[in-house]
């Protein structure tokens, strides 16, 4: 599958005089794991909010799953999943309550929810904790649960906003195994992260610098392009370029 699932063309977003996203053009292919990197304040979050249909672009356009984000945001929302840094589960609800709530707002039927929910809990080996409050679960479990819930409605594309923030390396590795499994099932993954080891796991990455896309390609291509050995050095090179 090499269809384009996200197509951004000359996308800009201004807040007053501040240009958060400055004329970016890129595409994400169906089925790939796309890493969206950049320093805090580089415009990642704004770009992601535009692509999720939460924020209208000031100029330019973008389509997600074939729908225009500015005019067809309702269709966009139905076809994407989203998981934030804070896992966005309700701590005071049980595991099952969370599952049925999120599946429910994605318009899944009762039978579908029961079916998908149980399959998911089996896979995560969380079946016996079905009625536990989410707040009492260890962080790693919460994170896996949050991701499984984010894709319970089988979206074509899932946005992950720093999904591994504050999680230990082994749990992070296990989490990435889940991402790969989802990608194999055909779900495109759009992920922002500050962990550069994770950047290396992505099929392709883009690095935003001051609202623009500073670099875009496979991790290998980028290292070759900047003649360095790691993504860390790519980012350093980009930062130096910005200062010069």
């Amino acid at each position, binding site marked *: 599958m090499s269809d384009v699932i996200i197509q951004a063309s000359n996308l800009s977003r201004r807040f007053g005089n501040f240009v958060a996203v400055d004329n970016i053009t890129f595409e994400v292919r169906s089925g790939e794991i796309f890493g969206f990197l950049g320093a805090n304040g580089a415009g990642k979050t704004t770009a992601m909010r535009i692509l999720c*249909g*939460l924020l209208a672009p000031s100029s330019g356009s973008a389509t997600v799953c074939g729908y225009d984000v500015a005019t067809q945001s309702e269709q966009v*929302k*139905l076809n994407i999943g989203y*998981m934030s840094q804070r*896992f*966005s589960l*309700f701590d005071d609800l049980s595991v099952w309550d969370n599952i049925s709530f*999120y599946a429910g*707002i994605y318009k899944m039927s009762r039978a579908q929810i029961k079916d998908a929910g149980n399959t998911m809990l089996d896979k995560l080996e969380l079946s016996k904790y079905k009625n536990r409050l989410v707040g009492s679960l260890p962080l790693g479990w919460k994170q896996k649960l949050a991701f499984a819930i984010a894709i319970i409605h089988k979206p074509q594309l899932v946005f992950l906003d720093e999904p591994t923030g504050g999680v230990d390396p082994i749990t992070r590795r296990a989490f990435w195994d889940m991402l790969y499994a989802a990608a194999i099932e055909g779900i495109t993954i759009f992920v922002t992260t500050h962990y550069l080891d994770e950047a290396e796991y992505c099929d392709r990455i883009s690095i935003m610098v001051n609202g623009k896309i500073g670099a875009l390609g496979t991790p290998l291509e980028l290292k070759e392009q900047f003649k360095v050995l790691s993504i860390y050095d790519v980012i350093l090179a980009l930062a130096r370029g910005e200062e010069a």
Partner: protein
Amino acid sequence: MKNLSIFVRKEFLHIVRDPKSLMIMVLLPLVEIMLIGFVLRFEIANTNLAVVDMAKQQQSTKLIHRLEGGDRFKVRLTQSMPEAEELLTEGKVKAILYISEDFDRKAVENSESSLQLLLDATDPNIATTIEAYVKATLADFWVDSIGGSPVPMLITEQMFYYNPLLKSVYATVPGLISVVLMLICALMTSISLTREKESGTLKVLLISPLKPLQIIIGKLAPYLLVSLLITGIILALSFGVFGVPMAGSLIMLIMVSFVYCLCALALGFLISTKAKTQQVAMMMSLAGLMLPTTLLSGMIYPIKNMPLWLQGITYIMPARWFVSILKHIMLKASPFSAYAGELVVLLIMTGIFTLLSLKNFTTRFR
């Protein structure tokens, strides 16, 4: 000691770097002192008093002039008792003084004179104070105008229309309802919405196919239900335990409470669009809504006694209008026309708060 000073310094920095909290800390006590200082007054000023002068003679006219002098009463002359009673029911006057035809003659003859004073006793405190003022004015008048003869014993025979036992609970129940509903509707909704914001779940909800309006209604509806339930409980208690009368229509009462709940929910929602954290939402609700609702709704302290600028502020308190409607319905059984205006004000307020918060909500996330 050194640790302590470092700690104090750190705390101090927190405060200084957070101007909003500083403002709250400085302003809150200030506002409280001002409010309590200005509101806690029991003397009466500029009370609306209807006078039905059937005598229309020298002495009765003098008495009316005496009542008009000074700033205690604002006299409204009416032609007949029914006309005056209508004003009383609508709350436009607090008391009626009826001067019978033979007032002048009896006063001079030094025989029993006939004056009738009718008081609106929905606010028992005000009623007794007005009574005392009228008595005092009459006594002065006697000494100055009738003269010669000794001051007669003045027996003002009172007939309390709405609150014959002068129970203050009659006056407090409407206020209590307004405060409790404000607490639940506004405080709870604002906190629960900000909690979603804090935990990041609101963003997930917004990215989901749910429409913003659905999220809002989904959040507010449960609180509306709880509030109506609570209204029912308070009413049941006030009827059953305190014996508060239900003079008017219960259906009307429920409908008006519904409107007030909507208004409070809209306020809570408005707060949540502004507040970033639950604590801020709580502070805003408590300081911005609860305290003024308690003090400025006319529940405890008569609005009439407040300085003019503070009276102006009471106009923007939904509770002021709500309490007034409740008194009309529960105690006076006034006709709908008597409180239609208040209801319209409440509806307009609800509309404005809803529009404002929707605007905030959508511009924030869109």
